[in-house]
């Protein structure tokens, strides 16, 4: 496949790996402990596992899988709100496919649909708007989810609905922004990270400037990375290069997609309809200031939270889950007490087991041989372990 296969070339990978090994040799720190690099975005986590990249790298490099999977960090209470909206008899609830299986405290959207709710999978918010046009006597709610990557398309859909004067369309807005969360992770006292692979798709919208504080204030190098396996290897190489040369900078490996200034039109559309919430709850990480996005007062008529009564309950994560520690890189997914036993992709307890981009699900589905043995052993030992 043109423009894709070039970025998966195993011969080029070998050359890069040799250079990465040579750089690791020169980093003194690597002799004391493994170097920890966080890939912020779930898309990177997925690629790293899909192509089996981690075992190819020197043992002195560890990936820490960051919070950049919007499905994974959605708190259980918000899923309950989704289900409550979907169960409203007037409502057609529209959502991206990934969100269907996320467990709420009562049920997932998939179960709600089986129980009779009108839940429909869409590929874009514009599809949801189309459904609203076709069903003028029903209320169509779109489950808006994701970082800056998906925000512009939601914003443009709201603007389109406004232009057409469509009254039966609204958003259940769960958009989040990644920067405050990276900051919260950097402020964590347990932090041992040495560098970041920056999110590629988010940066396509926001550009590279918002990451400057990571290099300047926290003295950590960050490389905005693409999603193909060679992109990831090259970005690791760029991070190691910075570390050997004692630099801490924001670099852009994904220049073929990410303009340093971001996408002005997209940002304008987002700015017109959205504003920051004071705080927003993240599954596994708790409440983070200014990390959530909602519709501005002038677009309140498109806000499902204001249009319908949403229970808005806070539901605590199961105690046995250690998602927060995994997200911060304090423990590895398989070191969590319930990983592979009570918590599996079929019956996820924790957020990170839910989406294929979640770190735990990635380890479970795509892990190495040793991990497969561990998973099997745990599953046999404690299938019914504590759903506390």
């Amino acid at each position, binding site marked *: 496949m043109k423009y894709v296969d070039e970025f998966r070339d195993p011969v080029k990978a070998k050359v890069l790996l040799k250079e990465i090994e040579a750089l690791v040799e020169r980093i003194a720190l690597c002799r004391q402990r493994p170097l920890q690099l966080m890939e912020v975005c779930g898309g990177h986590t997925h690629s790293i596992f899909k*192509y089996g*990249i981690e075992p190819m790298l020197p043992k002195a490099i560890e990936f820490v899988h960051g919070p950049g999977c919007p499905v994974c960090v959605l708190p259980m209470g918000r899923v309950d709100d989704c289900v409550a909206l979907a169960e409203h008899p007037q409502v057609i609830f529209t959502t991206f496919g*990934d969100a269907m299986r996320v467990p709420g405290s009562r049920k997932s959207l998939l179960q709600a649909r089986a129980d009779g709710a009108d839940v429909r999978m869409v590929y874009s918010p514009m599809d949801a708007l189309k459904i609203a046009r076709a069903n003028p006597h029903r209320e169509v709610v779109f489950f808006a989810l994701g970082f800056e990557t998906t925000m512009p398309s939601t914003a443009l859909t709201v603007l389109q609905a406004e232009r057409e004067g469509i009254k039966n369309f609204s958003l259940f807005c769960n958009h989040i922004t990644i920067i405050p969360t990276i900051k919260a992770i950097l402020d964590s006292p347990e932090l041992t990270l040495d560098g970041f692979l920056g999110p590629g798709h988010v940066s396509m919208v926001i550009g590279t400037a918002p990451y400057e504080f990571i290099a300047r204030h926290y003295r950590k190098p960050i490389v905005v990375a693409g999603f193909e396996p060679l992109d990831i290897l090259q970005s690791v190489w760029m991070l190691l290069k910075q570390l050997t040369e004692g630099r801490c900078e924001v670099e852009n490996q994904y220049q073929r997609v990410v303009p340093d200034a971001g996408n002005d039109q997209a940002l304008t559309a987002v700015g017109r309809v959205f504003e920051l919430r004071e705080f927003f709850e993240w599954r596994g990480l708790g409440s983070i200031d200014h990390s959530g996005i909602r519709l501005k007062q002038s677009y309140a008529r498109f806000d499902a939270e204001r249009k319908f009564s949403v229970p808005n309950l806070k539901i605590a994560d199961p105690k046995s889950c250690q998602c927060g520690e995994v997200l911060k890189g304090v423990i590895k997914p398989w070191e969590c007490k319930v990983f592979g036993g009570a918590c599996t992709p079929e019956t996820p307890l924790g957020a990170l087991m839910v989406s294929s981009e979640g770190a735990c699900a990635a380890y*479970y589905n795509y892990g190495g041989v040793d991990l497969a043995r561990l998973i099997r052993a745990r599953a046999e030992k404690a299938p019914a372990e504590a759903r506390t």
Partner: protein
Amino acid sequence: MSRLLNPDRPGQASIRRRNGKLRDSRITLSHGSGGKAMRDLIDDVFVGSFGNAVLEPLEDQARLNLTNLVAQGDRLAFTTDSYVVDPLFFPGGDIGALAVNGTINDLAVSGARPLYLSCSVILEEGLSVETLRRVAHSMAEAARAANVAIVTGDTKVVPRGAADKLFISTAGIGVIPKETNIAAGRARARDVVIVNGTIGDHGAAILCARQDLALGTTIESDCRSLHGLIRAMLEACPDIHCLRDATRGGVATVLNEFAQAASVCIRFDETSVPVCEPVKGVCEILGLDPLYMANEGKLVAVVPRESADTVLAAMRAHPAGRDSAIVGEVIAEPQGVVLLRTVFGGERIVDMLVGEQLPRIC
């Protein structure tokens, strides 16, 4: 239940059958009522298409000659499957061809020679008769091509909304020759894994045929019967260890079933698995994995290493196996695990699919 095929008294059927002519353009509830409308439908649409010596008497059941069966082997293979595909017609096939070939393939992967099929249809009130004719015609074509007879059946009509257009259920009977012993549990270390061509075609064809994606590409389903290919394989190597058609869940699921049933490890190479370019493209865009995509004319075989080249050559000489390829091997450890060497040179586990294979959002 086959009563519905023959609402008439025995004896009168063969005289009055020829008169049955369906003049309506849409299916109504009366076509399932057991009366004249139903008889016309059965005569005109089904008997007209499927016509064969076992079906013709229109008894409540098909009567099969045991001596004929016994002469062909020592075990009966018996299977059933339902077909609810949407859309009914898609590039490379339709629900009718699928219902015939799918059941033939379920028989054939046991090494059986497929002989007889049943055909039950559930029709939604309002279905166009023309659509039903096309489907019945397609079933007849597929059965004729495979030298299999559709010998009994049933028709039901449900009110609008109680079913989606048309569902088909087919059961099949075949005979397994004496020396043949194919089973998932027979995979042994050193065996070789072969697939008979590009994977994921059917799943991708259905995705593209659903209008809502508007991908602007046409991919043909690989829907076809495999018993001819399988016979050629068995002639090349009577001791084929495992054989399964990779339908829902795709090749990855079949490999996991083999690895678990035989307590072995199957290791395969992503670069050696044939995937056609448009399917790669669709999977890339939607974040799907062709290894889990449905096929309707693809099988996975595990054969002894010594016979691998002979089997591969026989497969490539058959129209249903032109793009056959050796994709991997069986090793002893770790038991029950499928390992993939990725295109990039890394290695990872390939597990069973959990839930539906849904597109990712970012």
